[in-house]
Each structure stands twice: as structure tokens, then as C-alpha cells.
């Protein structure tokens, strides 16, 4: 069905009609249909009847919603953003029935190696904070005493140390 707004409001100028202009044009078209002369009174009548219909008729409500969406101001298209790299997802290589979450458990790289495999170990380590990586360094240090990097480890330094000893 064509709408009064689209049939009576020709887009003669460059600018699209304002909401007020559309409402006036629609009311004028409706008033013309009834051969009524008071367009403002017709506009009020249309709005009130529409409100009542909105309450009782879900499909009418859908039409109103759709038209509302159609009338949204058109924004100038923006240049597309550079695609953001998707967050890596870990996929376990075997199950551990009965496993429980524990935020206080130390990050154990051998545990990650066992359940996520060699290929995902570095990915899992890259997800970690430097605080968690220090815990992992301590776990490695327990197996290989005296090997931990001296001073404050960077994230890259911590990961390469852990990988070096865990993948031996």
C-alpha cells in the first residue's frame, strides 16, 4: 500500500521533507478523503485513533515501528574501520571431567600444554597478564631452579622463557 506521506509529499527540493511537513501532508490527504477542511483537527484525530489502534492491533504496531525506522535521518556513510582481529579461542584437546574453576590456582603452563596442546600453548600464554605469567615463571622455576629471568620480565620475555622450558 502506498502511503499518503510518499504520494503527496513530492521530493521536489534537494532536501527531504521534515517530519512536520510529512505530518501536515498526511493530514491534508486524509482530510481531503473525507472532504473535511480543518487539517489540524484531522491531524489530531488521526494521531489519537492511531494511538488507540496501537494498543489493540499488534500488526498495526509493527507497521508504525517500521515506518518510524524508515524515517530515521540518513547519516553520511563513514569510512569502514579496519577489521578488528577476532579474539583467539582455545579448544581443549582432551576433557578433564570434574574440573572446577579456581581463581586462586597458579597458572601452570604444563597443565595448559596437557589440555590444549603444544600449538595452543603460546596463544593461551599471550592471553595472560604479566601477573599471571609471573606465576607461571615460578612454576617453571620450581622444575628448573635458577633459570628464571632476572629482573622485571616483559610479557614477551616471560612467554619465551616459559615456552623454552615447557616445550623441552
Amino acid at each position, binding site marked *: 500500500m502506498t502511503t499518503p506521506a510518499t504520494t503527496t509529499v513530492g521530493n521536489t527540493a534537494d532536501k527531504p521533507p521534515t517530519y512536520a511537513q510529512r505530518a501536515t501532508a498526511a493530514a491534508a490527504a486524509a482530510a481531503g478523503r473525507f472532504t473535511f477542511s480543518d487539517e489540524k483537527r484531522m491531524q489530531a484525530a488521526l494521531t489519537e485513533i492511531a494511538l488507540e489502534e496501537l494498543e*489493540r492491533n499488534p500488526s498495526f504496531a509493527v507497521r508504525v515501528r517500521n515506518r518510524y525506522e524508515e524515517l530515521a535521518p540518513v547519516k553520511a556513510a563513514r569510512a569502514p574501520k579496519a577489521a578488528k582481529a577476532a579474539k583467539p579461542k582455545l579448544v*581443549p584437546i582432551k576433557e*578433564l571431567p570434574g574440573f572446577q*574453576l579456581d*581463581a586462586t590456582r597458579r*597458572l601452570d603452563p604444563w597443565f595448559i600444554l596437557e589440555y590444549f596442546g603444544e600449538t595452543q600453548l603460546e596463544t593461551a600464554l599471550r*592471553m595472560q597478564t604479566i*601477573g*599471571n605469567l609471573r606465576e607461571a615463571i615460578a612454576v617453571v622455576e620450581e622444575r628448573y631452579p635458577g633459570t628464571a629471568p632476572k629482573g622485571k620480565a616483559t610479557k614477551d620475555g616471560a612467554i619465551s622463557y616459559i615456552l623454552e622450558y615447557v616445550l623441552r
Partner: protein
Amino acid sequence: MAIEFMEFTHEDKSRFEPFFQAPSIDKMHADLSPTDFERFLGYMFFSAGFNVENVSLRRMPRGPGVDLNVYQPANPRKVFARIEARRYDPEGSGITLEDVLRFAGTLVAAGAVPGYLITTASFPSNARQVAGRAGMQNVHLVDGATLLRYLTYVYGSRVNNGQGFHRTLQPILPGWLFNSLSKSTRTPAHIITVANNKGGVGKSTTALNVGFALSSMGKRILLVDLDGQANLTSALPPREPIDPHARRPRRQTQPPRAPQLHERTITEHFSLEHTPLPQLVQSTRFDNIWVLPADEELSRIEPGGSAQPDAELLFAHQLRDPQLCVPTVPSDAVSADPAPPAHPFDFIVVDTPPAQSHFSRIALAAADFALVPLRADSFSVAGINRALTATRTMQALTGSPMGKGLLLTQWREVRSMRDIQAKLNVDTALLGYPMFDALVPYDDHIEQAHISLISGGLRNVFGWRASSAATAYRKVTEELMRRVGA
């Protein structure tokens, strides 16, 4: 002859409990001899609330010719079911049709008592077909996968009996194992249950804002409030009749009036009246959002979180019933228009109470997707394991696939939270509860929106352009839709 029920020691407990905590057919087959497997099944039925008699040494014709007899405590003299245990190699050829026919013959000879043939292996299809035929209704076949479901359900439904053992408060009849929920007719709606037994993690806020985000995408949403605190309900007051002649209230001088309350609530469904759910669906002030409201009386009829498989499955069926549709507005008496067709909901979002209650369990039983909000702190993470057990328990009950995801809420960019989040990325992948990419930050707009909604306003968190929580909930909802395939 006096019945001698099996008694279990703490040695049995320490031996058998790992099979409840981490059920594994391979481990069962590797660690238990055939005799051990019989005793383990005795322990399993004891945990499931039955009394168990070992009759494996009593052969036909003087004995029943099976391994175990189980009795309901309320009727300790009448055999409730007979159990035959077969610990077979899960990878081997398994049980044959002849084994099943022999078991059926034994049951007939021993009297008309249902029998369960339980194995760690599987059954051939011809044996399954035979077991369902006329004259064989008493024969129930429990394969390894079904055994794991039963163990998981029993594990998540027991309480300490005061003597160091965990048992269910009522015997759990295994009959439900054979009626998988996924086979039943169901609503096309995706059912999302927001659950965590810990309070204050943002369950109602998440249910509400996921509901608003979905409705803004044009989806028809039913929000179900199963929490007796009724916070979700209070944010979704009923639609008031619109007076087109009323003047718009001035913001500064006329605060919104206190909203009306819903006249009917879901308490009617769970009380003696048993009102069908479709009669209790109420419209709200928001387009595309309906509610099954709660009230505080819901907490008073809470029957507790122990095992009630029949009631749990019943609610899952009712929420999945295709008749649970958008309520039709009665057409004008003089209008000749036919009644509009019934529209199914696109999403049903269920809010649950804190604690492991009956209402949390039934909500999870109905779920296609369990959305678990969580704060990134050590207490919350420790507590989440109970919520995850409840999810596994109810999935074992229904036998239906259920998506799962953890959502970090009340997020702040502080070191302790970042550390926990990073560890959870690894641990939740192992658990099969992948984290949502989006984090819901602490945002004061959430509280401002609650105040607005509860006091009768219409402004939800999406009404603030600068709300970081609104942005996060939009992302969560988009991810949720991808995960459920909507």
C-alpha cells in the same frame, strides 16, 4: 527370608565418589571389576534414595536371577526394580539381542517387576526395538551414555544424610531417562536462562537488558521472573490504558506516578491453582516485551532444590509448549475481523533466584542456553562451580543440548579483575563454558535506569547514549544470537 540391604563403608565412598564427580565410562571399565561394578551400581541406587539388596548369588529358580533388587524406603518389602549389571568393554561388541531376551525371560519368571539392564557398553538396535515392544515394557536398557546422565543428575541432587553419605531426599526413578526433552514438540522460541546461585552478580539486570536489546531488534520477548524478589517484574510494570487527552507531564514538576502492579503472577502456576502459563503472560509498557511476573509469595512456595525430576521436566515442557504465545488482544465485539493469528515468542529469557533452588533448577531444565553472569573476584569464581554443577545436572535430566556462556559483569579495569579474566579464558574453555567476548562494565546508568523503570518511567539503560553498559549489553546480545543460531 529377611531382606538384607547393602551397607556401604567410607572406603566404598572414597572409591565410588570420583565416578560421580567426574563420570567416565572408560574409567569405570578400567578401574572396576565386574563384581565392583555391581557394588558400584548398588551405591549409585543407594545415593539415588533407594534401599538396595544384593541378590547376585541367588540364581534361578530360587532367586530372581539378577544382581540387585532395589526398594523404595516407603515400601521396604516390595521390590521396586531389578537390576542386572554388565560391565562390558565400551569399545567392544557389547550386549547382544540374546542377552536382552534372556533378561526379559528372567524378569517374567521373577514376577512383574520392572528391570534395568545396565551396561558400560551399548545395545544393538535390534535389542532396543525388542525392548519397546508389547510384553516387554518392563525391560529398560541403560547404556553407558544413559548411565552417565543418571550419575550426573544424582550427583547434583543429593544432600548429606547426616552419616557422611549423600543421598537424594526422595528416590529418583530412572524412568525420565528414556523420554528426552529434545524429542518433544516445542516452541520455536530460544529459551535463555540467566542463572548463578550467587546473589548480586547482575542476573536480573542481565535478563532485563538482554530483553530490551532483543526487543529493539524487533524480536518478541517473554521475560520470565522466577525470583521471589520480583526485581525484574518491578522494572516491567503493566501497560496502563492510554489517555490521549492527557497532557504530557512536565519533567521537573511532575514525577512519574508509582506504577501499577501486575494482577496475576506466576505464583498462581506453582500454587494449588496450577494456572496454565499462557493465561499468566502479561503485557508491559514496552513494545515487544511481555512478562510472566513474580511476586514475593513465590519465595514462600519454594519447595527446595533437591531432586524432583518429574516437576522439573514438567516445567521445561510447559515453557517449551507452542501454545505459550504472544497473548491476543480480544477483538472488538462489533468488529468482523477474525482474531489475529497466535505469534510465538522469538526469545524467552528467564531470570532465576540466587541459591540452588527448585526454581533455578526448573529454569535450567528448560534452557537452550545458560547465561551465567559472574563478577571477576575470587569468591564469585569459587561459587560459580555450584552453578555449573546445577547446569550439568539439569542437562543430564533433559538429555537436550544446551549452550553455555559466562559473562563478566560489574567489570572494572583493575589488576585483580584482569588477572582473573585471563585465567578464566583458559579454564572456561576447558569446562565448555566459553566466556562472552563483551564485558559488562560497572556503569551508574544501570542503577539510574532501574530507578527510572521501578518508579514508572520508560528510560532503560539504552536511553543514555553514553552508557558503556548499554554498548556492552548490545554486544552480548549480538553474540548470544550468534551462539544460539538466531
